[in-house]
């Protein structure tokens, strides 16, 4: 269709536009493993000195492994919660004859569009009053609740593609509606559950503002807050250290994205805001 048109000028233009991004991400890798003479960006030696944060904990900070564990727990817990709650509610909205179903569906859409971050002042005060401030559990619940409308919306979409015949057959064989959902329909949407779980995990892993406000210090610190505090500390400016911690932090994201990019691009395109 575009046979008589050359594509290399477009590729060239796009390459120039993409150059800053490529440069930034390339130097994320280069700077963590090398040193360069002052004022230059061409490395002259290979080194692992920027990675000593892995086994040497600076005074006054948590061990990087403790923080990583917190991040892992935060991301997996929110992902699990989102998946469980959404796969239940999504099925109802897709298939079941409940009163006011249309209202619930409209509610999910409104909640999905609504920017929940505006509620952070109220949530901050509520967590302080109920004693969940500065705890991992508090942030996990808040993050799961905020991601949930998107999860329900996606799961409803996945359930919509399951053929009705499967359920009808199950019911004719005498299975209860619960059994039909649990044993026959859920296995059909496994890819959807996996995609949503992965997506929710990445959202939790990258989340910054919620833990920063709701669990900034103490033992609940996650990697994003840890790295932000490291960067904000004016006494120890060390770009190579920041980048090494940053690479350590972003590596799981890049690996997961590399393997599952088709899943993720669809979800990002179809659902998320930002």
């Amino acid at each position, binding site marked *: 269709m575009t046979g008589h048109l050359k594509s290399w000028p477009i590729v060239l233009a796009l390459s120039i536009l993409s150059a800053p991004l490529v*440069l930034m991400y390339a130097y994320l890798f280069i700077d963590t493993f090398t040193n360069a003479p002052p004022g*230059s960006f061409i490395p002259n030696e290979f080194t692992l000195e920027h990675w000593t944060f892995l086994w040497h904990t600076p005074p006054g900070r948590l061990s990087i492994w403790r923080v990583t564990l917190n991040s892992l727990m935060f991301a997996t817990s929110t992902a699990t919660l989102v998946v469980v709650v959404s796969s239940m509610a999504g099925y109802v909205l897709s298939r079941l*004859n409940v009163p006011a179903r249309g209202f619930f569906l409209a509610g999910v859409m409104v909640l999905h569009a609504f920017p929940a*971050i505006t509620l952070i002042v109220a949530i901050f005060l509520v967590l302080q009053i109920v004693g969940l401030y500065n705890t991992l559990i508090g942030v996990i619940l808040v993050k799961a609740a905020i991601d949930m409308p998107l999860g329900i919306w996606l799961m409803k979409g996945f359930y919509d593609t399951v053929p009705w015949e499967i359920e009808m057959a199950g019911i004719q064989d005498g299975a209860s509606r619960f059994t039909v959902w649990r044993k026959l329909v859920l296995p059909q949407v496994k890819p959807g559950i996996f995609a949503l779980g992965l997506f929710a995990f990445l959202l939790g892993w990258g989340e910054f503002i919620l833990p920063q406000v709701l669990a900034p210090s103490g033992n609940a610190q996650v990697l994003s807050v840890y790295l932000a505090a490291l960067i904000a500390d004016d006494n120890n400016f060390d770009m190579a250290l920041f980048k090494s911690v940053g690479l350590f932090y972003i590596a799981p994201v890049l690996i997961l994205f590399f393997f599952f990019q088709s899943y993720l691009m669809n979800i990002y395109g179809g659902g998320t805001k930002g």
Partner: protein
Amino acid sequence: MNASRDIARDGSAPLKARAVPARRSFGWLNSSKGLGIVLLTPALMLVVLFFLAPVVLTAVFAFTNMSTATGITGGAYQVSPGTLRVLTDRYGMRELAARLGQPTYIVDEEGLAALEEMGIDPGIIAGLRDEHLGETYSSRREFEREIRDLPDRPSTRTVKQISAEFSRSLANARFGNAGALVAAAEAIDPDLGDAEKEALLDATYTGWTWTTDNFRRLASSPQTTRVLLNTVFFVALTLTLFNTGFAMVLAITTHYIPERPAGIFRIIWFLPRISPAVIYVLLWKWLAWDTGFISAFLDNFGVRPRNWMLGSATNAWVFVILINGFVGASMGMVIFASAIKAIPQSLFHAASVDGAYRWQQVRHIILPHLKWPILFVTCYQTLSLLTAIDHILLSTDGGPGGSTEVWSLWVYHTALNNYAGNLQYGYGAAMALVLVVIGVVLSLIYLRLFNYSALIVKPRIEH
């Protein structure tokens, strides 16, 4: 459907036999309604706890003067030179303030009991009770002279201990509730009027109170206009330049190049979105810092190194919009690209045969098909840019000098984190309420715009 269910029941005896006990104990799980309500419950709980309640509470908090100073849970009643001055200045009760402020000594049973507990000589206590019970002294010296004149004359140290026990001055006293304060005030001055009591309670209360001042302050503050303009500027520019404009450029250009390089460019432009905000902004800082890449690069041409991100208000805006725009472009890119893919190939072929230039294809075939996707992206991203906070907070933090402070960041700086340390929860909630109202109204409008009823499919199994 009912007929087929009956067949199933009649036709398969073993299945029925298995199903019956299950049906007795979990009958509700077998109806669409019962199961539906059970499966919806966790989601509803989360919605009530973390959406509905916070919306209501934001409105409630907006009408209070809560801050770090007042605390969140109730307060106490603190009498201090400051509150006595308030009593004089605001309520004109100079005399009351003077009476409450001066030291007062009252010989009462409470004080005598305290002396017994301290192990003071019973003779002294008996003497005090017999000769001075119920008397009031307005100076320490006068009272201590009376103590020294007792039959069992105490040592100077004991005199001081005794007089301290009978001190009933309100100065610097703290009371847990209103009743205790009124009782203490009445002990000094039994003839307190209701108006005086009320003024005293008002002046000494340290907790938060209901007020509409937040909104008055918001309406009259010159900063409001400035932040509002900043926000509109930020949203409008980022949205048109990147979230729709540049996203469209990416979607259309990658449509016209071979699949392989197109895929690579899509991945590159997706990196900002999948990267956690902290590390993504760090990479920009590396680019723009005074020891960063741009400075070092321009140094070769004799430009003095400086912080390009925070050097001036214009620079800060350029970076804020670039940082947010690079993230925002990817969503539009994916949505527009799939919309372009959905355009029938025959349209392109026909145009190709007619010898249409690429620009004409874009103008007459692609753009008309992108109308709804563009509207969709504009709607959703307006809301998310309006409330976006992560990237600006991490990059410029509203600086330099507040020039890139947008509304959501202002809320954060007022209520959640600032250098002064006095967090104004109530004022911040009032600011957040503005965003909450805009958010609710816009999302309801979008619901009408993107007709949702088309998405509801009638359940085909009825029971």
